[in-house]
């Protein structure tokens, strides 16, 4: 190529495309273990240079001195929501403060630390607290509306803090963390009756420390049962005039699900509804005594339906049962029928806890930053 200007333009175009592609996943939101290695616990002491108080994770930057050399470290912390709940604010530390931070280091060896504990001298400034609301000693009855039906929602309060973060077949005992990562990969086959390809894909996702989770990586909605396994919870809004139940989410991309209660025929094809398959499928509901029964199909295949990455296909049909046996408990049971990914239908169940007098927390992932 003789024209140096053309040559440099082409080089720039190719470089931009390559860099744009390769850097995209590195910038994205992520499960903790996808970026940080739990086996690399360490402690650093340094002077705060900046505090970046933003979703999804707060960052504090420290200048750390080693001998005569000074290096800047990025300390990544939980979301502003969880930090606030633990008594911290955007002004709890300021540039110039000297802090000691315990945490785990980034897998790529860069000067980044994930921390849940920050100290100033001998004083612990911040440590993540258990934010579960206290459960009243005496069980109060579930509230009822004018029509006598149990109400799943009310103006003040939401459902959060699931009893399980793991979508696991009823009766199976396996250990997972809150992101759905198995403590022992050998337990993968126990989690659900997966077809061979789906088991292999599930194990691959686990082996990669869930770093490909599209909910974190691309802010995809947590469709299917996953929306009921988030700390940040959900809120039921029943629109009796229009005969719909809306389920609002506090986490992920702050989305909502619609359950049609108007007796319509189910829409959405079991084989995929290729015209418009949805993240939340098409759901119709009806009352069964005090319980809300919901059947849903017409899902797309663009999301993980569980923390930890259980695969599904467009053949997925969910049958869910919501019940509120008392004021503070939401019972959730789901039957999963997906002939594309599982060898037979299976069920899972857990509970969520009522968080009174609070709005459902808002936590956006759309900014797509670490």
């Amino acid at each position: 190529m003789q024209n140096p200007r053309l040559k440099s333009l082409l080089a720039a175009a190719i470089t931009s495309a390559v860099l744009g592609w390769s850097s995209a996943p590195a910038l994205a939101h992520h499960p903790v273990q996808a970026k940080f290695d739990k086996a690399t616990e360490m402690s650093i002491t340094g002077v705060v240079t900046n505090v970046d108080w933003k979703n999804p994770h707060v960052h504090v930057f420290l200048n750390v001195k080693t001998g005569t050399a000074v290096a800047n470290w990025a300390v990544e912390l939980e979301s502003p929501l969880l930090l606030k709940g633990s008594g911290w604010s955007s002004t709890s530390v300021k540039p110039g403060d000297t802090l000691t931070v315990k945490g785990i280091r980034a897998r790529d060896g860069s000067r980044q630390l994930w921390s849940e504990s920050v100290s100033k001298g001998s004083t612990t400034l911040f440590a993540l607290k258990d934010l579960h609301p206290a459960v009243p000693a005496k069980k109060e009855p579930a509230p009822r509306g004018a029509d006598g039906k149990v109400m799943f929602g009310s103006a003040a309060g939401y459902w959060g803090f699931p009893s399980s973060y793991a979508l696991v077949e009823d009766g199976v005992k396996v250990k997972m963390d809150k992101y759905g990562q198995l403590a022992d990969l050998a337990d993968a086959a126990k989690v659900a009756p997966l077809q061979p390809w789906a088991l292999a894909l599930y194990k691959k996702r686990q082996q990669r420390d869930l770093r490909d989770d599209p909910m974190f990586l691309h802010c995809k909605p947590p469709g299917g049962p996953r929306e009921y396994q988030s700390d940040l919870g959900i809120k039921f809004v029943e629109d009796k005039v229009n005969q719909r139940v809306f389920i609002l989410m506090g986490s992920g991309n702050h989305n909502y699900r619609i359950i049609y209660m108007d007796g319509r025929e189910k829409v959405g094809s079991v084989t995929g509804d290729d015209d418009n398959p949805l993240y939340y499928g098409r759901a119709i509901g009806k009352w069964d005594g005090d319980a809300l029964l919901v059947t849903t199909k017409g899902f797309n295949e663009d999301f993980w339906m569980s923390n930890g990455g259980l695969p599904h296909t467009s053949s997925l049909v969910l049958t869910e049962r919501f019940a509120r046996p008392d004021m503070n408990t939401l019972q959730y049971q789901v039957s999963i029928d997906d002939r594309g990914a599982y060898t037979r239908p299976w069920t899972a169940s857990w509970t969520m806890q009522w968080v009174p007098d609070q709005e459902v927390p808002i936590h956006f992932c759309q900014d797509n930053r670490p």
Partner: protein
Amino acid sequence: MMSNIIRKAVLLVAGLLLAVSAGAQEGHPLKGSWIGEWKGNQASGDFLFLVLDWDGKKVSGTINPGTDDMVIKTATLNPADWTVHIEADGKAKDKPVSYTLDGKIVNLELPSRSIVGTWKSQNGSGALEVVRQ
């Protein structure tokens, strides 16, 4: 000479952009549309377009849908090593042809995953690479 280099560069950039924009597909890894080349295929041309589906029991699909389409008679995915085997019969230049494709899924975790391997028929053989769109 220069136009050839420019053409290759534009194709490279377009390919990278296509790779970035591939739609998510978190279900069966073979499901979807795949575009690429079966190099040196003089009977059917270099361009290769695969459309694959999964019904829960078997993979089905079509090679080069359109006037030269070939219905896939066998397609398997071995999840132990993510190898793919595809057989299809059709016509090329009005003569019957049988193709066998063997490859492996590369970058399984990405929406823009690839199948890299080889093709062969009674007319010849060569390298194969298709990228999921």
